[in-house]
């Protein structure tokens, strides 16, 4: 008999399942499970530059068999999702229709969920941040450590240590590229003054293996992270799913689309549609963990409880890209040995002291291909190409994240589908003017600091609301909330035994990546459930 059903194989689902399975409980993970079978086998285990010069089949995975990798129009959300990663978003918009106005919606029905394309940033919340969520670091620290040990984290004990709780199992940081070395050298020369002004720079913590680790890695610096999972060095939830499948009391059921649950007596029944046959089926357990992604979980919960036309909050870290020219790199050669993930992380403490934090990641540009940058210059393509070849080694792209908090303009509502049409989520995301103004002002502060490091801004791109894909906050943990909130164990209050293990439970989101934090909370949910079911 199944003890716990987990819905979704993303970062939350698999990390909630691990403690349950390790405790010997019978766990069924129900998943849609889209995978890329077309492109992954084509990609050679070579470096980006070797592939470019030698592989005559490269156009197939770089551009796609239907040329879907050639982007037209302005920079879109998820521009880094290349043809080999396109399966991550496949089918979701059809299965879970969303009306969202200007809010970009990216949901996943892939094996590994959105985690299959995660940029692998590991940014645990601080105690102060967690206390604003009715949690604290003592609660979550063992789960941060357990997840870090499971997924493998590389990082450094540098100026960012004060913002991120330490991790005992941390491997040495990934090497940074030439671009980042120049920026870091300038930072070191001005470090005291910059720190005093509230600017801190360091190497990002990344879910990557710089050593042999649980059969993965070490990282080979092939610069192909946007295209393939070489040597499994970068963590993907699929690796944990494979480990889980080695346990006899763990069952994985894919090609199922879960659309509702129903509690009856001491059991929870989950209803799903077979993705290929359309057959309806149901599965039963003592408890249910929903980890279908914030939006997917909202759709399932609101349908199951019949909460149509009822607004719940929605959050997503506002995100802005700033293309800068790193003057210290002009005329220098970029090393070929590199990776495409974030090279450096900056935390800016906005004055006055104790005020907001803003986080920025510095990326270099190469492996997403030059023609995509040509499109961004308002010049003839021939001249654009010639200019870009000279300047590209000096490009430093800043990705700036802001915190997000609920407000009346940010809501998510389920509308009943008419006739045979599926129920639709309706998302409204209108931050207050004050919030928008503050974010813009904070970006100027971040840019000013990077200018001191020699990075001169060329173009600011605001890909729009929802761009960070850090969706959260629909059923927040609240000490005394209503039925559409969670208790501190992440149990949905309207239910007896339905737990949420994705972004849904965070009542606000600091300006950090959410993924590692939701993994830690998922591990906590699984651990709490073990105690409860025993």
């Amino acid at each position, binding site marked *: 008999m199944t003890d716990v059903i987990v819905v979704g194989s993303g970062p939350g689902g698999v990390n909630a399942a691990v403690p349950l399975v390790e405790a010997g409980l019978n766990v069924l993970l129900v998943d849609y499970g889209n995978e890329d079978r077309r492109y992954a086998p084509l990609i050679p285990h070579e470096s980006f530059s070797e592939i470019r010069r030698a592989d*005559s089949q490269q156009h197939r995975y770089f551009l796609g068999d239907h040329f879907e990798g050639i982007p037209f129009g302005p920079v879109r959300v998820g521009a880094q999702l290349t043809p080999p990663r396109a399966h991550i978003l496949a089918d979701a918009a059809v299965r879970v229709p969303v009306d969202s106005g200007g809010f970009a919606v990216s949901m996943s029905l892939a094996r590994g969920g959105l985690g299959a394309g995660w940029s692998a940033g590991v940014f645990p919340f601080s105690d102060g941040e967690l206390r604003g969520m009715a949690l604290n670091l003592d609660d979550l620290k063992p789960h941060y450590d357990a997840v870090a040990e499971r997924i493998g984290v590389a990082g450094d004990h540098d100026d960012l240590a004060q913002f991120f709780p330490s991790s005992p199992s941390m491997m040495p940081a990934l090497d940074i590229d030439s671009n980042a070395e120049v920026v870091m050298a300038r930072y070191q020369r001005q470090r005291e003054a910059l720190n005093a002004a509230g600017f801190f720079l360091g190497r990002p913590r990344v879910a990557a293996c710089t050593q042999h680790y649980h059969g993965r890695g070490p990282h080979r610096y092939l610069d192909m992270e946007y295209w393939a999972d070489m040597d499994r060095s970068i963590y993907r939830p699929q690796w944990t799913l494979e480990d889980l499948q080695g346990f006899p009391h763990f069952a994985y059921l894919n090609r199922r689309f879960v659309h509702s649950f129903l509690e009856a007596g001491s059991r929870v029944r989950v209803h799903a549609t077979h993705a290929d046959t359309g057959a309806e089926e149901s599965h039963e357990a003592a408890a249910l963990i929903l980890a279908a992604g914030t939006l997917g979980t909202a759709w399932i919960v609101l349908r199951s409880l019949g909460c149509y036309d009822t607004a719940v909050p929605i959050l997503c870290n506002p995100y802005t890209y700033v293309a800068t020219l790193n003057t210290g790199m002009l*005329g220098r050669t970029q090393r070929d040995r590199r990776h495409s993930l974030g090279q450096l992380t900056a935390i800016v403490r906005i004055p006055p002291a104790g005020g907001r934090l803003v986080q920025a990641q510095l990326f270099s540009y190469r492996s997403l291909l030059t023609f995509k940058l040509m499109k961004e210059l308002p010049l003839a393509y021939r001249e654009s190409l*010639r200019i870009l070849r000279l300047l590209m080694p000096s490009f430093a792209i800043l990705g700036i994240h802001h915190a997000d908090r609920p407000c009346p303009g940010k809501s998510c509502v389920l509308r009943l589908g008419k006739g045979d049409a599926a129920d639709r989520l309706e998302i409204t995301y209108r931050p207050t003017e004050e919030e928008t103004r503050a974010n813009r002002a904070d970006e100027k502060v971040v840019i000013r600091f990077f200018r001191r490091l020699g990075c001169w801004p060329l173009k600011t791109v605001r890909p729009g609301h929802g761009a960070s894909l850090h969706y959260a906050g629909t059923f927040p943990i609240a000490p005394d909330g209503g039925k559409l909130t969670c208790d501190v164990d992440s149990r949905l209050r309207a239910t007896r035994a339905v737990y949420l293990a994705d972004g849904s439970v965070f009542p606000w989101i600091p300006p950090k990546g959410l993924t590692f934090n939701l993994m830690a909370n998922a591990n906590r949910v699984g651990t709490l459930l073990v105690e409860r079911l025993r």
Partner: protein
Amino acid sequence: MGLFVVHRESCFSPRVASGAEDQRSLQVEARLIARYLLGRVPSQELVERYEEANRALFTGPVDQEDAAVIGFVSRHPWSVPFMDAASGLLRPDGMLRGKILTMGAILETSPEFADEFLPRTVRPTRLLLRLFVLGLAAAAYIVLGTLLYAVAIRSRA
């Protein structure tokens, strides 16, 4: 025969090509764009890939301004750099830009042209000089291209 082909699904009927003519025109177009971008003629394989990409990507209706620009470039292939420059400013998402971008993508992802898209390192003084010259050239193409663009649009009207 037009060098830039508007697809048969388009609403731009006067310059619609079909069948063998369509194929031949796309091939001429591919070679013209490659020569414009990189000064070299691509292999037949890349030309055929460009044809395939056109059939996959440019299937929607063509609006009048795109039709005018494409028509002008078809009649005056020498105008590609100018019209490209003007379109970059006036109509960055237009069909001409889309076609040149598509050929650029195909060339970049082929081993024979990959080096032409990889970064080049030059000494700072040479870099500044090159940027200055390229900037001047780009500005000149934009100025002349904008005039030509107006002529192209008017000729269509």
